[in-house]
């Protein structure tokens, strides 16, 4: 029960006790309404610690105590907790001379909160809070906001039927209640109490878990009734305060999902308002400024309840809270905002010292410039012009970097420092201009507090390009005398500067090899000695010729440069190779925190469907993982920027099958043989297995989601043999034009089957078996998948939701009513049908004719 052992949850370091109180109050209110209305809002139960959902699910909150926990036991537990808190508190105040223990005190408090939660005795909890003025004064900050909720739920509680809901409550408190269920109940329940409860319960889940459902949450916030919105908002606001990245994502998604509304309603919608709030930068990270005030009063006041701050007195007892706040205002969100405004302005001076005055502006500016580039590229007629223009535009963008900007698709905190502009490529698209850029970033521990790295001029890389750092191949260097090319410079006026610079550069780059420091003289010595030894050296012409062909053969098969398809070469190059190359050429490359990211910038495309597909894929992936079905799919991250722009995280080490066929002029099987070796080599077999597992995975995805437009340009093959489907522009109810192509369940060409070893091979049976297992697993968790889609349908004009039967059809494709034998038959039928499908062939032919896609 006791979880004092895991207090370290760094990203959530901002004032958890205050949040706890904010959360628990409405919780109590609801809980009371269910079990014992008479207790009223006087209850101030424990805080619900966020995070660690599974451990938490056994905890019973305020109400739980009424039903389950023996009061005596609870009281005892509570006293233990208090002891612990005091102990920790004492420690922290003892050592409060240094500022560094703020965090410790904070941790102590949090632990206290956690522990208190675990035991859940309300009286104890109140005392606990009272005894900790540091906590208390923080509670005040957000309690007004929640008070509104409290009142509302309190009013409604009379109507509730306690008997019916107590079962629900048991579910909510059970171990099994996960974020997916929470979202589902939030969406389906019409009961404001339930919604409010779940709104609070959101705080208990791991951030990453909730993040996955962010599109759903926000879409509900925008398009569903007020109660749902009110339930969600505190959580969103809270998270925005914590994380700048979360703020950005919210703002972008709110904008994108509001765009389907009528323009007049859109302007006044909640979504737009929340978006403005976030963008107005009022939700600055709060943790720093809140920690500090809490420190000073704590040691002074100790446990004396009389010496509270004036703020605390307002919210002293919970009974008065609901009443006073009831008088003060009636469920007014705008007021909450203004309150927050005051708050942030009052601590602005402090705040400034910790983070930049403009939080989101640089990032938005960065995104805006990338989008502007995309728009301008779209006006150019040829790929070549686009590429050139892209490179020059990016080189200009480089002048503004490093900046307090980041790529939201990355999984870690970082600053963007440079865009290696010459590496950027324009991707294949007929009328739009998506492009792929590589972005050099420096990783940092905490984006909010880290300083933007200083700019290093481009030409500072030159010293790293010394001969030593270049890969020397083979023995040729030793065989030939003097591999360096220059004779020492005797020009005095030149030498005067260059020597200085070289020294300076080497100081800057600690990684440089020590033996490189004097390369010029070193080599001149070499050449002199070789001249002295007048013995002629002979070489065989055949050797030269052989080395040439060998070296060319050893370089991994790369694609030829094609002005009409500039991305092929860039994508074929192995990622590690590319990273190494770019790092070598970058002035920031020597820094240990240097990382390379890549991103596809799409301008003029709606990525909301892509995001939906990403979520479904991700969900399927975790279902299959959970059910131990070795299907392989690769969901790639999507950042929706607006209804017509966004970014995509590229799949590395993968090129499209179209590019493969065009460049290699081989069949897929032959290409596999070329890349991985002959049939019985291990690497070929591994690649083949990867191919089968990914193929089965994507066939299921394509079937379930009805992914269309499956030409070879939209199917990638990675270096390990996996296929990856990209471009989910046509899913569910939408398909490209209505020519009646692609009627089969999924795309399975004979070429694919050949790679699997033909229709009679073991691998092909394995493929079918995987499909069956995958389908059974997916069926078992159908709700989790359908839910994602269903919520996004709310208020959406996306083509994939066209018509009224999207969800029904989706559900039908899971075939809940079939036995496993029937399912097996179905899979057989689908595979057979797809293999024989004349339309797939036709569609490829059609694509070849219209778009030149092989």
């Amino acid at each position, binding site marked *: 029960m006791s979880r004092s052992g895991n207090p370290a949850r760094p990203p959530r370091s901002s004032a958890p006790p205050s949040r706890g109180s904010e959360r628990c109050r409405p919780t109590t209110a609801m809980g009371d309404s269910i079990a014992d209305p008479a207790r009223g809002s006087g209850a101030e139960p424990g805080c619900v610690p966020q995070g660690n959902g599974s451990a938490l699910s056994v905890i019973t909150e305020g109400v739980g105590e009424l039903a389950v926990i023996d009061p005596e036991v609870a009281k005892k537990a509570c006293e233990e907790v208090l002891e612990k808190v005091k102990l920790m508190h004492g420690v922290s105040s003892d050592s409060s001379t240094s500022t560094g223990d703020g965090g410790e005190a904070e941790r102590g408090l949090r632990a206290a909160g956690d522990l208190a939660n675990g035991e859940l005795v309300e009286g104890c909890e109140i005392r606990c809070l009272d005894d900790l003025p540091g906590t208390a004064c923080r509670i005040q900050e957000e309690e007004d906001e929640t008070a509104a909720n409290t009142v509302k739920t309190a009013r409604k509680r009379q109507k509730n039927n306690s008997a019916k809901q107590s079962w629900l409550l048991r579910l909510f408190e059970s171990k099994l209640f996960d974020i997916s269920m929470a979202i589902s109940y939030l969406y389906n329940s019409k009961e404001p109490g339930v919604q409010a409860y779940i709104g609070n319960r959101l705080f208990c889940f791991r951030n990453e878990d909730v993040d996955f459902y962010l599109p759903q949450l926000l879409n509900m916030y925008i398009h569903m009734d007020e109660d749902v919105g009110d339930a969600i908002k505190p959580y969103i606001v809270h998270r925005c305060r914590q994380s700048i990245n979360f703020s950005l994502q919210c703002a972008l998604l709110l904008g994108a999902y509001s765009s389907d509304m009528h323009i007049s309603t859109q302007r006044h919608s909640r979504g737009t308002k929340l978006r403005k709030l976030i963008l107005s930068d009022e939700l600055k990270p709060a943790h720093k400024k809140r920690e500090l005030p809490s420190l000073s009063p704590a040691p002074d006041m100790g446990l004396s309840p009389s010496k509270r701050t004036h703020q605390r007195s307002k919210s002293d007892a919970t009974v008065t809270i609901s009443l006073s706040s009831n008088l003060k205002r009636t469920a007014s969100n705008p007021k909450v905002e203004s309150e927050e405004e005051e708050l942030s302005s009052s601590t602005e001076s402090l705040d400034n010292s910790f983070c930049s005055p403009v939080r989101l502006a640089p990032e938005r500016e960065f995104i805006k410039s990338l989008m502007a580039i995309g728009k301008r590229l779209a006006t150019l007629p040829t790929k070549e012009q686009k590429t050139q223009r892209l490179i020059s535009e990016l080189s200009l963008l480089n002048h503004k970097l490093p900046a307090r900007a980041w790529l939201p698709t990355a999984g870690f905190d970082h600053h963007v420092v440079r865009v290696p502009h010459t590496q950027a490529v324009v991707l294949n698209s007929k009328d739009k201009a998506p492009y792929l850029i590589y972005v050099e970033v420096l990783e940092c521990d905490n984006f909010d507090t880290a300083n933007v790295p200083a700019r290093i001029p481009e030409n500072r890389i030159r010293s790293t390009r010394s001969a030593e750092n270049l890969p020397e191949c083979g023995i040729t260097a030793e065989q*030939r005398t003097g591999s360096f090319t220059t004779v020492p410079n005797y020009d005095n006026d030149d030498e005067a*500067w260059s020597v200085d610079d070289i020294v300076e550069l080497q100081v800057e780059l600690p990684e440089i090899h020590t033996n490189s420091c004097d390369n010029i003289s070193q080599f001149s010595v070499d050449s002199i000695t070789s001249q002295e030894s007048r013995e002629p050296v002979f070489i065989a012409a055949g050797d030269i010729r052989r080395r040439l*062909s060998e070296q060319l053969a050893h370089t991994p098969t790369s694609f030829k440069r094609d002005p009409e398809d500039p991305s092929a070469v860039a994508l074929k190059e192995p990622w590690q190779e590319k990273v190494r190359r770019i790092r070598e050429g970058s002035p920031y490359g020597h820094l240990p925190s240097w990382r390379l990211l890549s991103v596809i910038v799409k301008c003029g495309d709606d990525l909301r469907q892509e995001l939906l597909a990403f979520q479904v894929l991700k969900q399927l992936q975790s279902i299959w993982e959970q059910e131990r079905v070795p299907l392989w799919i690769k969901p790639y991250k999507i950042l929706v920027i607006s209804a017509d722009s966004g970014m995509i995280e590229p799949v590395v080490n993968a090129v499209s099958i179209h590019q493969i066929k065009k460049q290699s002029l081989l069949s897929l099987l032959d290409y596999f043989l070329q890349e991985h070796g002959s049939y019985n080599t291990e690497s070929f077999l591994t690649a083949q297995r990867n191919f089968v597992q990914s193929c089965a995975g994507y066939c299921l995805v394509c079937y379930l989601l009805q992914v269309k437009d499956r030409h070879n340009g939209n199917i990638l093959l990675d270096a390990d043999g996996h296929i990856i489907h990209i471009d989910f522009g046509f899913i569910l109810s939408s398909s490209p034009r209505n020519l009646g192509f692609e009627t089969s369940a999924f795309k399975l060409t004979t070429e694919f089957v050949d790679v699997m070893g033909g229709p009679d091979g073991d691998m092909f049976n394995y493929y079918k078996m995987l499909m069956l297992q995958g389908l059974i697993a997916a069926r078992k968790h159908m709700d989790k998948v359908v839910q994602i889609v269903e919520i996004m349908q709310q208020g959406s004009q996306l083509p994939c939701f066209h018509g009224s039967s999207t969800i029904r059809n989706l559900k039908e494709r899971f075939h809940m009513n079939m036995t496993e034998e029937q399912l097996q038959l179905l899979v057989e039928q689908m595979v057979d049908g797809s293999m024989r499908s004349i339309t797939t062939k036709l569609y490829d032919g059609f694509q070849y004719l219209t778009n030149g896609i092989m």
Partner: protein
Amino acid sequence: MAQTEKKGGLLRKSSASKKPLKEKVVLMYDEIFTTEDPSKSNPRFWEELFLMKVNLEYLEGKLEALDGEELMKIKDNINCLFQHCIQALGEEHPIRVVNALQTLCALIRGVHQKNKSTSGFDIINMLVGFDKAELCMKNLMESLDSLLCAEGSESLKSLCLKLLLCLVTVTDNISQNTILEYVMINSIFEAILQILSSPLSRREHGYDAVVLLALLVNYRKYESVNPYIVKLSIVDDEATLNGMGLVIAQALSEYNRQYKDKEEEHQSGFFSALTNMVGSMFIADADEKISVQTNEAILLALYEAVHLNRNFITVLAQSHPEMGLMTTPASPIPTTPVTPLGTTPPSSDVISSAELPLDADVQTSNLLITFLKYSSIVMQDTKDEHRLHSGKLCLIILTCIAEDQYANAFLHDDNMNFRVNLHRMPMRHRKKAADKNLPCRPLVCAVLDLMVEFIVTHMMKEFPMDLYIRCIQIVHKLLCYQKKCRVRLHYTWRELWSALINLLKFLMSNETVLLAKHNIFTLALMVVNLFNMFITYGDTFLPTPSSYDELYYEIIRMHQNFDNLYSMVLRISTNAGQWKEPASKVTHALVNIRAIINHFNPKIESYAAVNHISQLSEDQVLEVVRSNYDTLTLKLQDGLDQYERYSEQHKEAAFFKELQIQVYLNYLWPKLE
């Protein structure tokens, strides 16, 4: 000048009504040109003087009429005038400042005009007076510096630069202009940089600033420590360097555009009138000659930047839209001091402040491309002195570029592909290549193309030996980089090989004529060593194994030339004489080529004999080559991939002195007139 014209108009008007009346300012000038102190009669004389509009013509004419001795007589008044001018520069009223600047201009030029032969010190004495010179000039430079840096009017800054240019160019040899010693001591370098770093002032004064800088750098560059050289070499502010690059690129592309217009005019007489008109709109005095006259001043600036400043190399690759098409935006966009991205102020908004124009036709370009095009035009015709100098300077700049690691990195960058339209001389035996079909390639291909083009087109009686040597050196340096960094450039090396072989052929057939003037063996040795480079190190930089075969094929095919060359150098090296040594070097260098020829020729002959073929096809020869590599042994030659770095001080000093005088001659005098 506009001012004088205006004044003329005024005069005419007044003269129509009355008897010719002297302007007040002219009367005051007359007072100065007496031995009397003018402020004696009128204590407010100097104050009044600078309120009057300057009559440059009169003042300069008056000064020019006096010779040294006469000037010495009125030295006190001249000194006085000079000092008061400097005083007036500090005044608030812009009219006074403008007048003072113009008066100074006239004064300096007038005094110099008549006294070309006089020593610099005497001129300083005449103008300022020795005793006060140091302080006076310090004040002058400080005033100019603050005027240039201030937020003041653009025309004022322009006048300041004109005055400085005037000061720098009063003597034909800049190093003899003693007065510049004060400009060295009181540096205005920072002011020049500031002009270049801000987009607005750069647009207005960039050209003047760059030329001024180039000239100042050339002041006694070999004799003393020139602070401008020192400072220019360490500038690392990207905004400033980019600004400088833009000014240079703009000037060069303007030249390219004019040339193109003129060329088209030649081709279609119908439009000639029109283009002439358009051309004259761009350049003030667009008579026939000037419109294609080379611009050594700007080229010199480019050279100094590339040669002295290693950071400038990055600017070469800095992309910008094609200059000719980018007319400067009418409304100068106020550069917002707001930092658009984060806490670090944007280190530069050089070009970005004016967003790249949204024009589909605009081809992105960069300074290097513009420069290559310019070079291709200039090097077409090296007959007259100016163009020879220009072409030489172009090659020197390319030499510097070819030696630079960073420059080489982007020259060879596979991702930076450009279509560079080099100008090719129309020749009888070849058609003008269609521009449209040019592939997009790394920039180094364009450099190589340019070199090949030069080699092919300059085999003439007036053999530009120096340029050829530089040209071959550039190719050699590029190859050294490729060898070192294992860059496998997909270039049609065959064109280079056949150009080089043709060059050898030309040298041999004109042996007697050329030997009278040049050491042709140095050049021949360099060419042969280029081949040696391909033969011995081909595996490190050739794109495909078959290109190595092709190299052998080409050598075998043209073996006659190598045979002839060998017999020639052998003949000369066996005779005693001044060419013995260099010729014998060539014989040694030819060892591998001769080995190849001697190895494969019998093989090919026997192949033909066995198969009963009289004439072998290329594929057949290649087949023979491929199957007989293993029995061929080559000798490793030393130092093939080593070169002497470019050095200005010892070898090029005379050239740069000459060049500076040329700049002085064709740029400044006509412009300031």
